[in-house]
């Protein structure tokens, strides 16, 4: 399995380990190429955050100013959704989610990510089957991990904010301010609605993670397809070379937007889930 560099390679659903072994169990099986990219992304984010906050001054420098602007924008956005009573508790996690997803998505657009690694010669040239760097949000392990972490925090925040009784009442209780016989009559209906609600909550991690994974994975596949379009159409080599550079350009811009959009969507959905379960009755108007 020789090592080579090409412009792009179609991803597989499975994220292979970066230390493939032809004999027996691979070394450090958990260290997949997406975990390795996650480490790189995490290191970059932590380094940048430290650079921005190491020597904070009243009149901020460019790095501090940029980081403050991002944090301030996120803080205001999250506060407008979850409310002032929750923002201090949930901000750090939601901001981490947004920044991590955004940097990961944009990291995936760097040359070499997904196209440098191990593989073998194919019909149309070298085919990378185990890239060294895989977009970490194009790996279900990462997106599911973030969604799972969020759901654990969400459950903790919801219960500590409104209490177990109110939390259950929020799901199964009779809504609309109904009382008396009418409320009694509707209890089975709302119990059934509550069960549906529980099922929808249980599927939230999957919906969150699949949405992000699907979009990024599709974006990578799209870029790979655009780059190799000339080869697929069996065009002459010079034309193929030109097309492999020019055709993907608009799609790169599209993927920049998609990366930002998906990070925002993930964070906003998490904010909305928190708001739905932690809003007090008088605020929610129930």
């Amino acid at each position, binding site marked *: 399995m020789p090592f080579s560099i090409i412009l792009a390679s179609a991803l*597989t*659903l*499975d*994220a292979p380990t970066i230390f493939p072994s032809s004999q027996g169990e691979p070394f450090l*099986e*958990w*260290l*997949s190429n*997406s*975990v390795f990219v*996650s*480490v790189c992304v*995490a290191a970059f*984010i*932590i380094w940048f*955050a*430290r650079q*921005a*906050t190491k020597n*904070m001054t009243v009149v901020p420098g460019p790095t501090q100013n940029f*980081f*403050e602007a991002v*944090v*301030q924008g996120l*803080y205001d956005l999250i506060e407008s959704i979850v409310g002032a009573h929750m923002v*201090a508790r949930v*901000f*750090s*996690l939601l*901001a*981490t989610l947004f*920044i*991590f997803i955004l940097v990961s998505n944009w990291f995936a657009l760097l040359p070499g990510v997904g196209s440098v690694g191990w593989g073998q010669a194919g019909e149309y040239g070298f085919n990378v089957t185990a890239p060294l760097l895989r977009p*970490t949000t194009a*790996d*279900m*392990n*990462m997106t*599911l*991990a*973030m969604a*799972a*972490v969020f759901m654990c925090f969400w459950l903790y925040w919801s219960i500590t904010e409104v209490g177990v009784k109110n939390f259950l009442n929020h799901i199964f209780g009779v809504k609309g301010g109904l009382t008396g016989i009418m409320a009694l009559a509707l209890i089975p209906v709302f119990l059934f609605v509550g069960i549906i609600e529980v099922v929808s909550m249980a599927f939230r991690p999957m919906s969150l993670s699949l949405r992000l*994974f699907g979009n990024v994975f599709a974006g990578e596949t799209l870029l790979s397809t655009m780059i190799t379009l000339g080869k697929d159409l069996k065009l002459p080599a010079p034309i193929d070379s030109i097309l492999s550079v020019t055709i993907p350009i608009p799609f790169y811009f599209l993927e920049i937007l998609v990366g930002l959009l998906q990070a925002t969507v993930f964070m906003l959905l998490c904010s909305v889930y928190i708001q739905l379960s932690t809003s007090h009755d008088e605020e929610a108007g129930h």
Partner: protein
Amino acid sequence: MDQLLTQFGIAWPKFAAQVILFLIVYAILKKFAFGQIIAVFEQRRRTIEEGQANAEKIKKQLAESEIRCQEILRKANADAQRIIEEARTSSDASTQKHTQQAIKDAENIILKANESVSLERARMVAEVKKEMVHLVVDTTAKVAGKVLTEADQERLASETSKQLAA
């Protein structure tokens, strides 16, 4: 379910590694980045709120000062008007008083002058009469060519005085 997860490439060691990695990033950012930034935001927010409160307070004080200033000006104007009115009244009364005094003084002066003139006139009349008597006696003595006796002089003077008085 396992088959579905496997199809999507989910493997528990990798999943656990990603979870741990994400939690590490979250913990570090929360402690060393967001915490500090939010503290700075809070400090700025408090400073801005204090500034706004101070500005509001100053604005209120300015409005109160303006009202007080207007009140003082109004009162000063009223006092000034009252003082001017009093001065005018006082001035009129004083003028009236001085005029009356002047009139009275003038009348006194005129009266005294009249008395003085009368006395002077009487004195002059008396002197003229005395001169006339002497003149008549002397003239009579010269015309008669004799020396008039005391009795003649007395009689002549008496008759002359009667003639002058008539």
